[in-house]
């Protein structure tokens, strides 16, 4: 067999400049070897910082932002591209090897028509004439399932949706008839329902053009759908390499097993009991200056010690609902009852105790904590503010809370920048708990985290719920998360609750069309799942 790409003992590093210390050499990729045959797809998977994008870019002999390739060989068509001259690299990049980035919206020039950008590299490298390239692009648009392939190219980037733009970028990468395409998390920024359409389109296009590809993602279920081989990376080293079937069904390494079994938390639904702690009645709301309602007549209830999951794609109004409950956005109609009393619709009208009872945890733990405050201050402030705790008593309680979130009191004097993503989110949880609330609003708390870390956070939330009898209103777009923690579910679509009830009832047939679409879009870790789903779909996603 002919090897298209051979990577031998690749070492990549970067120089870090910590303040007040001498510069340090950090090794990002520590000797990775892999080969790829013509027409095959290699999946690279790992957590953030595993070095997967860095390896992907090394196939173009490119190091991003100060990254240096320090050792090893990268052979493309038996030519070591690490030794190539700049001029040869130019003909390689965008010609022989092309790249699809994560954010298509940021990768397109908003001022030029799609067609001009899609065929630009092809013309630049003189691989085809203009008319040939255009014909090929139109054909690729068709293969990728874009609407009106003949005229699609005459639109501007802002005139098409995110999912379509991502497909247009795939067309751009495939247009020069390259030997190898590097896909760097091409579906990560998309909604689940859009993600599988793009995924299916990419898969079809790869098969039809017979190109080889490197597919980089952190989601094993996604990569299982498209690749022939999978390489699992961690801290810049290969953990396991094998055929997709073997990695998914009989992983050898402990770490791979953990990745495969991620999102399999089992949570038995609790029946609602007692009076609901939160009642949202007939809430209708709109933002100032926007002439349509973002929320339309919402009715949901949350019971003490239970979790209501609010699911939907971006723009469905989930986060707006949280803003209305906290009083940050005053609804135009409807009322919110908390623990038997009606809450003032606007935040300034609420008492300190009302505020204490409803706490919030944000998606981005990075921005939810003041970078200039220590963990001790961040967690200690609600104690001081609501309960007047000071000095030793406060310190003791903070230490207890740190214990609860499974971090020791060694974290007291650390700054947020010194914590990992998962630890940051844990500190945010501790801050919410410090107020001793009855309800915590969790806004996509796990979606910025790596799967294994997210699992840890979900487990922690469930344990804390059992201990503290706190209720959660859990906003997410990820159905696997919902299955893991919800007692009841509200499915939102374009500002309305389209389906609401106990978990088992919402997740069992008969489904309405949207819930069916949403449920079927969650990638599952089995081979051939993608084809199955595409065949049986009943509607297209709205964000398409």
């Amino acid at each position, binding site marked *: 067999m002919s090897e298209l790409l051979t990577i031998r003992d690749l070492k990549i590093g970067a120089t870090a400049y910590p303040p007040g210390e001498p510069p340090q050499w950090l090794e990002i990729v520590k000797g990775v070897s892999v080969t790829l045959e013509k027409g095959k797809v290699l999946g690279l998977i790992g957590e953030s910082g595993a070095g997967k994008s860095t390896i992907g870019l090394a196939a173009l002999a490119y190091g991003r932002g100060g990254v240096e390739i320090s050792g090893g060989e990268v052979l493309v068509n038996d030519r070591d591209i690490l030794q190539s001259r700049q001029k040869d690299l130019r003909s390689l990049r965008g010609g022989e090897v092309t790249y699809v980035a994560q954010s298509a919206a940021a990768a397109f020039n908003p001022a030029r028509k799609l067609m001009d950008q899609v065929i630009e590299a092809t013309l630049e490298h003189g691989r085809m004439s203009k008319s040939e390239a255009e014909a090929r692009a139109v054909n690729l648009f068709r293969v990728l399932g874009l609407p009106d392939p003949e005229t699609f190219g005459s639109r501007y980037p802002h005139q098409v949706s995110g999912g379509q733009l991502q497909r247009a970028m795939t067309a751009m990468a495939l247009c020069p008839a390259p030997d190898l395409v590097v896909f760097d998390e091409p579906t990560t920024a998309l909604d689940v329902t859009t993600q599988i359409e793009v995924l299916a389109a990419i898969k079809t296009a790869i098969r039809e053009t017979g190109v080889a590809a490197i597919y980089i993602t952190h989601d094993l279920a996604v990569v299982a759908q498209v690749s022939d081989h999978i390489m699992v990376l961690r801290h810049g080293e290969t953990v396991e390499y094998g055929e997709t079937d073997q990695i998914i069904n009989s992983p050898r390494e402990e770490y791979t097993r953990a990745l495969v079994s991620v999102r399999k938390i089992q949570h038995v639904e609790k029946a609602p009991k007692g009076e609901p702690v939160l009642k949202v009645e007939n809430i209708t709301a709109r933002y100032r200056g926007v002439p349509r309602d973002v929320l339309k007549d919402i009715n949901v209830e949350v019971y003490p010690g239970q979790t209501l999951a609010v699911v939907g794609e971006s723009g469905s109004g989930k986060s707006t609902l949280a803003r209305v409950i*906290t009083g940050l956005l005053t609804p135009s109609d409807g009322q919110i009852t908390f623990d038997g009393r009606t809450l003032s619709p606007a935040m300034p009208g609420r008492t300190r105790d009302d505020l204490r009872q409803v706490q919030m945890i944000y998606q981005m733990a990075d*921005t939810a904590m003041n970078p*200039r405050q220590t963990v001790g201050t961040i967690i200690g402030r*609600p104690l001081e*503010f609501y309960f007047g705790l000071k000095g030793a008593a406060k310190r003791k309680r903070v230490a207890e809370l740190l214990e609860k979130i499974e971090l020791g009191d060694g974290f007291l004097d650390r700054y947020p920048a010194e914590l990992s993503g998962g630890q940051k989110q844990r500190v945010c949880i501790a801050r919410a708990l410090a107020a001793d609330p009855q309800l915590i609003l969790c806004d996509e708390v796990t979606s910025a985290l790596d799967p294994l870390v997210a699992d840890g956070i979900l487990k922690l939330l469930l344990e804390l719920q059992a201990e503290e009898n706190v209720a959660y209103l859990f906003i997410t777009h990820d159905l696997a998360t919902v299955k893991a923690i919800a007692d009841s579910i509200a499915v939102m679509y374009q500002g309305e609750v389209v389906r609401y009830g106990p978990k088992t009832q919402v997740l069992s047939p008969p489904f309405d069309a949207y819930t069916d679409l949403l449920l079927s879009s969650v990638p599952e870790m089995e081979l051939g799942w993608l084809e199955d789903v595409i065949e049986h779909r009943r509607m297209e996603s709205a964000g398409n």
Partner: protein
Amino acid sequence: MMRVPIAAGLGLVITVAFFLAAIFAPLIAPYGMAEVVGDVWEPASDKFLLGTDNIGRDLLTRLIYGGRTTIFIAAAATLLSFLTGSILGFLAAVLGGWADQALSRFVDLMMAIPSLIFALVVLSVMPVTVGVLILVMGFLDSTRVFRLSRAVAVDITVMDFVEAAQLRGEGRNWIIFREILPNALSPLVSELGLRFIFMVLFISTLSFLGLGVQPPLADWGGIVKENKEGIVYGIPAALYPAVAIAALSISVNLVADWVLNRTTSLKGGRG
């Protein structure tokens, strides 16, 4: 220990020297501030290190006392402009809406009038004392600080941690001084250095035009004014204060740059 880059170290040494000379002026200066000790425009000699000025006072003594006045007025005015400018700027960012509109439009109005002309008009109707000078310069300059601190704070107020503090029910003081201020410090500190220099130039300009520090009190701008006729005869007396102004400006800026770099790379700092 932290290492100080050469440029910043040099700047630090010169700045500190200037400030020390200002503070201990009566001890260092060889003669009395307004004492006539020699002939008009005597050349440099052992007796008068930099020569004498237009009426026979020792120029080095004048320079040292002049630095004292200039630095004191500039520092006090900078402090005033930062106190009013940053507090009002943060307030505008936190309050938003009408309060923000009213403050910002008022500041726009003030900035539409060239500050030198505005200051000249005000000073020509007010008694020119050191206190009035500081007030006029401080308030005029606070409009610039207002703009900067409002812009920085608006960015910070939309961060989730500020929202979290609001949801906790925190008062305005906590949000301004504990949540926003620590994060706005680095741009403000570097601006502080720059503003101080502008103040030195401003007071020098005013004095040169005769509406600043009044004789017999010395200040750098005033010394240039007094000795400017000498330039025609090749007498360098007017150049020394100019050199002093330039040296102070550059060294303070070197320090401010370094402080900016330090604070942005601090633990948890944001760019």
